[in-house]
């Protein structure tokens, strides 16, 4: 940790840290100066809490068939359940599911798919990217060719083909998202690792004859993290949107585990008859989640990279 803080004071201009002042604390304070980012973060935290606590918060378990009443199918928002007197604030879907409960459960699947896919892709992409930058030579050339090749095709098309081959399933969606996204991290981390590699502290660590893995993971990698964090935040939003699109196209998550995209896809069939709520409300939840993540990502970019702001 000490070398990370020490180095951060070396690179660009910010004033020297007081003894004992942690770097993350300064970043956190800096982050909170933007009202938009704070609102984004608050919404995000709220959504995560909703998603995690879904079983205790929702008025109905949307997947417990015993709780569903088919007679309550496609009721408009504000309708009242005839037997329990419970109000469907956002209406019901074709099988009499409460849309509000469905959205909270859907949020759970959408967010976890996005986060898990990003974390796995981040790990794989970062390892390969750092290794390529550190090793150089043929390994570097081949890896970067593969990255270039992959990034020249739109992610949606690659994911579509992969899922067409794998079939439906949450795990398969995550796998395709990882395959689509790893290249972004590999490229990002390689770029910053190539710069950091030539710095004195890496040379110093090498001169101490530290093992190669220690040089890479304890010295090189921590200093390549800031741009990665920014890319990863934005990619979570991308992953969520991509998953929703794939599920809408019918190659994503299975019907038994409906994400927000799946809910919207169901609502598509009722849209033309004016039953707008089934497709609209899950979409609004999706958009709010994506905007919140983007707001946080934008601010992180400004905070973590002083050179880019202004």
């Amino acid at each position, binding site marked *: 940790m000490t070398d990370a803080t020490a180095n951060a004071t070396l690179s660009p201009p910010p004033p020297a840290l007081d003894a004992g002042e942690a770097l993350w604390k300064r970043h956190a304070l800096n982050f909170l100066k933007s009202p938009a980012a704070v609102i984004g973060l608050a919404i995000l935290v709220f959504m995560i809490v909703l998603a995690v606590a879904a079983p205790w918060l929702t008025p109905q378990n949307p997947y417990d068939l015993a709780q569903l009443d088919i007679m309550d199918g496609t009721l408009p928002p504000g309708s009242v359940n005839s037997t329990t007197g419970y109000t469907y604030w956002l209406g019901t879907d074709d099988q009499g599911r409460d849309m509000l409960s469905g959205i909270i459960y859907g949020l759970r699947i959408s967010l976890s798919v996005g986060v898990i896919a990003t974390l796995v892709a981040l790990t794989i992409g970062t390892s390969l990217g750092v290794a390529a930058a550190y090793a150089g030579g043929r390994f570097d050339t081949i890896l970067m060719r593969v990255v270039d090749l992959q990034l020249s*095709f*739109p992610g949606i098309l690659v994911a579509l083909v992969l899922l067409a081959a794998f079939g439906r399933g949450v795990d398969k969606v995550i796998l395709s998202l990882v395959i689509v996204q790893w290249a972004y991290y590999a490229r990002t981390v390689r770029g910053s690792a190539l710069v950091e590699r030539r710095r004195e502290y890496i040379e110093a660590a090498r001169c101490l004859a530290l093992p190669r893995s220690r040089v890479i993971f304890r010295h090189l990698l921590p200093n390549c993290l800031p741009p990665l964090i920014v890319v990863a935040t934005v990619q979570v939003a991308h992953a969520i949107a991509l998953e929703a699109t794939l599920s809408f*196209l*019918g190659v994503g998550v299975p019907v038994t585990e409906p994400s927000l995209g799946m809910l919207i896809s169901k609502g598509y069939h009722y849209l033309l008859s004016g039953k707008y709520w089934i497709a609209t409300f899950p979409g609004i939840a999706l958009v709010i989640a*994506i*905007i919140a993540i983007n707001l946080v990502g934008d601010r992180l970019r400004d905070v973590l990279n002083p050179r880019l702001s202004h």
Partner: protein
Amino acid sequence: MLVYLIRRIAQAMLVIAVMATLVFFAVYAIGNPIDVLASPQADQIELAAISQRLGLDRPLWEQFGIFVWNALRGDLGTSFVYAEPAAKLILQRLPATFELAFTALAIAVFVGIPLGVYAGLNPDSLGGRSIMGGSILGFSLPNFWQGLMLILIFAVILGWFPAGGRGQTATVLGIESALFTLDGLKHLILPAMNLALFKMALVIRLARAGTREVALQDYVRFARAKGLSRSRIVGVHILKNILIPVVTILGLELGSMIAFAVVTETVFAYPGMGKLLIDSIGRLDRPIVVAYLMMTVVIFVVINLVVDIIYAAIDPRVRLSEVKG
């Protein structure tokens, strides 16, 4: 330059070959099409007959060999469902998709550039800020949901435009297109808007950033000092200079538009090649999926190749570093 050209073309061929192999094996791992195509009552003999007719009884590597040999002769297989050549089926739907993509591109450019220039000239005005806010929204809205909302508002609630389909086509100068009939245009406007919105957000950003930069240049100040009218400064001096990055990026984005047309066409039930792809994935019609992917790969590789060659022609550093590296 010649060395660079040969290297790049060889690379492009290699990419197509690698992608062909990947696509073939990926797609041929999708389920067993006989289960879908044969009636559930069919007995073993009928199943074997169907399998033999479609060439599915042969080992995978033999199917691959036949596929490569035929592909080299321009034959990308025969659709299981339509019993017609896959390439022909896709080419039939190609005009509809291109029509959609180019209309969307036109909307993105002719609406996006004026908005971006306005936002660039008045960055702190209410209008400028709203335009930028709108472009952030354009980036954040998932394409398919935004399409559904267009249908809901303009087709279901207001009833101005039809919710889907392609509409009538007419033939002018030997080109059959829906652009020439009122009905066709009415059908085209919503899907084209849907496909355009994301690119429009991009164009607005590029045009705004470019305008802010160019407006501070000496030649703009000089034009103003000469007493030229504002419209002439903006229309000639600024616009000409921001067009270069906008055109470059849009050229690169043309390919991704064809990819995103898959989503738009599905939402609007628009009979283009993207809708055909999604339907074929659902029906396990492998030859069509393979043919679609091969054609898209070729389109992408050609676009990238052209862009690279133009860059190399403009900037000698690119081709020199390639030859050395």
